């Protein structure tokens, strides 16, 4: 808890607006220097994630961006569900410094023409980075607006060349207790697994993110590579991906394994289908007092509703 006060004395949070961090790097760097100074005093203070570096040549075409007010970087990187680093919301921020996001290898296997172990850079750098300002709706009924940086998953898939047998894509998070101390406790049957139907994976909204706010991903946000599927609940956005498999049958995703009555495979944001223990009709945008109405497909119905035409979404939740 000590470091909270040290941070707040460096740069008062009221002085930081997301836009200013974003557009005035100097202030952001000063905040970073504050961290460094504290660490240098020899206290055992975890650094907020590890350092991030600026990403270059980001395309900002804004086609899919929401105009809503962005959630500050500070909040996006300190309020996380990432059970690999602990089950409290601020655990990832405090514990994720042990993750080593570089070098990073991603194993590609299954029904695909180009399987193998890919270095992260080989997977990403052939493609132009794009910024996408998306709404993020957690299954726990809170939401944020986050400027991700990444590449459409479709571009990676096209390069890997799935065969006609590949109906689904399956992702796995790193399983390494030393880097992810939360895995010492078996809260989830590690490693964390998520998946998408191939047409969902190919949708232009689906992003493989490597950064946010113009910098590489903080560890607690799933460095160095994570999935972002804005019309689905946040838990579909699997973090720190080490394996991508092209499979014939629907993957068994972690939360569905743990509580199949509460979490489905599709996990589309849907105000009409309640969670067993709370309503999904409304949500709290972080930083706002009153709840707001949850939108069908998190407001992305125009882009994705056609994927589910004719499907019973109450059954396939």
């Amino acid at each position, binding site marked *: 808890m000590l470091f*909270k006060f040290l941070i707040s004395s460096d740069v008062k949070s009221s002085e930081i607006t997301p836009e200013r961090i974003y557009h005035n790097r100097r202030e952001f760097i000063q905040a970073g220097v504050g961290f460094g100074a504290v660490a240098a005093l020899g206290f055992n203070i975890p650094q907020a994630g590890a350092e991030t570096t600026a990403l270059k040549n980001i395309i900002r075409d804004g086609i899919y961006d929401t105009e809503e007010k962005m959630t500050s970087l500070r909040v996006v990187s300190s309020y996380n569900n990432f059970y690999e680093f602990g*089950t409290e919301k601020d655990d990832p921020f405090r514990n994720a410094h042990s993750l080593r996001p570089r070098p990073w290898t991603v194993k590609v296997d299954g029904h695909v023409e180009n399987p193998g172990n890919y270095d992260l850079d080989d997977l990403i750098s052939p493609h132009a980075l794009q910024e996408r300002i998306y709404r993020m709706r957690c299954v726990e009924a809170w939401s944020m607006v986050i400027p991700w940086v990444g590449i459409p998953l479709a571009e990676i898939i096209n390069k890997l060349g799935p065969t006609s047998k590949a109906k689904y894509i399956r992702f796995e998070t790193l399983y390494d207790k030393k880097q992810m101390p939360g895995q010492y406790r078996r809260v989830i049957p590690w490693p964390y697994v998520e998946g998408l139907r191939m047409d969902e994976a190919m949708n232009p909204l689906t992003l493989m993110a490597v950064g946010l706010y113009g910098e590489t991903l903080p560890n607690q946000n799933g460095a160095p590579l994570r999935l972002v599927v804005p019309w689905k609940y946040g838990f579909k956005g699997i973090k720190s991906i080490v394996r991508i498999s092209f499979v014939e049958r629907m993957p068994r995703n972690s939360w569905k394994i743990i509580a199949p009555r509460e979490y489905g495979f599709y996990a589309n944001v849907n105000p009409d289908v309640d969670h067993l223990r709370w309503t999904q009709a409304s949500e709290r945008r972080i930083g706002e007092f009153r709840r707001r109405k949850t939108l069908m497909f998190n407001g992305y119905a125009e882009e994705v509703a056609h994927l589910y035409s004719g499907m019973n979404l109450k059954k396939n939740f």
Partner: protein
Amino acid sequence: MSLSQVKVIIHFLAMLPALWLLWQGWLFYDFQDNALTANPIKYIHHFTGNSAIRFVLIGLAITPGRKIFGWNKLIKFRRMMGLYAFFYAMLHFINFIVLDYFFDWATITQEIIKRPAITTGMIAAVILLLLAITSTRGWVRRMGKGWIRLHRLAYVIGLFVVTHNLVMVKADLLVPMIHTIIFALLIGYRLAAWASFFYNRKRKNA
């Protein structure tokens, strides 16, 4: 130290969670947005809920504490612990009604009725209210033996709050499990005491 001095100290300790919450609320108001986390309402909800459960458990621990350690004076604090459980449960409830759903009664009623996980907490809160109202000397006198019977509902409260706690948590059951185990031990102690009481009586009669 006199009893009233001890009571002042116990009051202070029992108020600490609430004071801490107020202080964090002040920090939050002062734009230190790490206080109360980015989602203060959820944080307050968990914090007040956990505080309420712990005072229920402390209240249920008074009798075993008296018997095991021979500290008969502990009984002087039982009502106080019950009332603090009620106090934190009310903060928890008010947070749910006011901050979380902001008097959206349609949703609130639906949530309470439709979701067993919330219903269990609600039932416990209603019983707590009943016991809090009847906790005064006047009620004890007026109700006579009925008062003891009514206040045995404290065990039901215990059962409902640990259940509520267990089913509301998403995956990490560590803390609710600790609450449940403590509750089970406190109930187990009573069952063992009753069993030995009847066993001894039988032997005496034989």
